[in-house]
């Protein structure tokens, strides 16, 4: 019997708390990305080395995407958007290491990422328009839309969570089933497909986060424009 995808395996217990496998993998990835970023940016120079060129290319691509999707200056958003993308990509692709299961295949990790996006939308919306201005955007286009707009705030975060969870978990699950039915080396094409799905889902999660944050920013600007004669 294949184990339930909704339960996580407990690796070790720290006091009364059982530390599960996704938590260990998440902390490993955080250490890897953080240390890697720190080591790679320790000696930046005006005449870039090979590594610095690659990193500048990655950051430049993320900035271009933010500029293209949100139509704003990318500087305040690069940190949160870029970290989200790199972490989800690393998390989805860490199934390449034998014995490691992607932490995004468990709904807790996705819920944490979704909460980050939820609060980032609130933070950037309030920062761009002030608390009253941001609350006013809920009454757009008319005040009848207030309940729908409030519900939408939660459902879009929920769909973000379930989308990432469903895609990554189904990939892991299908590989597990095929492995138990057919045996070694048969699920390799499926795993290659998983890599593609993982990259696309990381991109989509990030693009949707950008779209949501961008809409929280620009709804106020549309309101301002509408007031002008």
């Amino acid at each position, binding site marked *: 019997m294949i184990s*339930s*995808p909704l339960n996580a395996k407990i690796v070790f217990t720290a006091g009364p708390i059982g530390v599960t496998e996704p938590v260990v993998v998440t902390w490993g990835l955080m250490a890897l990305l953080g240390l890697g970023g720190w080591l790679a940016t320790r000696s930046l120079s005006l005449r870039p080395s090979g590594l610095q060129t690659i990193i500048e290319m990655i950051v430049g691509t993320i900035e271009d995407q933010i500029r293209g999707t949100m139509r704003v200056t990318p500087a305040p958003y690069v940190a949160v958007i870029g970290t989200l993308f790199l972490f989800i990509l690393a998390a989805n692709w860490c199934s390449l290491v034998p014995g490691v299961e992607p932490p995004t295949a468990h709904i807790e990790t996705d819920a944490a990422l979704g909460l980050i996006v939820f609060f980032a939308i609130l933070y950037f919306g309030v920062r761009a328009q002030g608390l009253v201005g941001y609350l006013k955007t809920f009454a757009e286009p008319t005040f009848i839309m207030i309940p729908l707009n409030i519900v939408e705030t939660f459902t879009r975060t929920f*769909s973000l969570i*379930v989308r990432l969870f*469903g895609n990554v978990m189904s990939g892991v699950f299908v590989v597990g089933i095929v492995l138990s039915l057919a045996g070694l080396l048969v699920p390799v094409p499926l795993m290659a497909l998983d890599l593609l799905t993982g990259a*696309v889902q990381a*991109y*989509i999660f990030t693009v949707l986060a950008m779209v949501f944050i961008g809409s929280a920013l620009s709804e106020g600007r549309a309101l301002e424009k509408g007031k002008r004669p």
Partner: protein
Amino acid sequence: MNWIEIVSIFAAAMAVSFGAVGPALGEGRAVAAAMDAIARQPEAAGTISRTLFVGLAMIETMAIYCLVVALLVLFANPFIH
């Protein structure tokens, strides 16, 4: 194997099979429209494919919801203890 388990397995299969039909048709239409747009206006391919990916993810979410419901019915069924 009691009746609830049999019905659960059947319900999971039904959820995935019928839940996949609609998104499959929708994704087909979306990709066809995007191909048409790119063929007419190749210079806008970047914007079109970015929007296409986001739209496909939105459509695909419906199928993923069905899958999640099926897995809940199979593994976290509140009526089976």
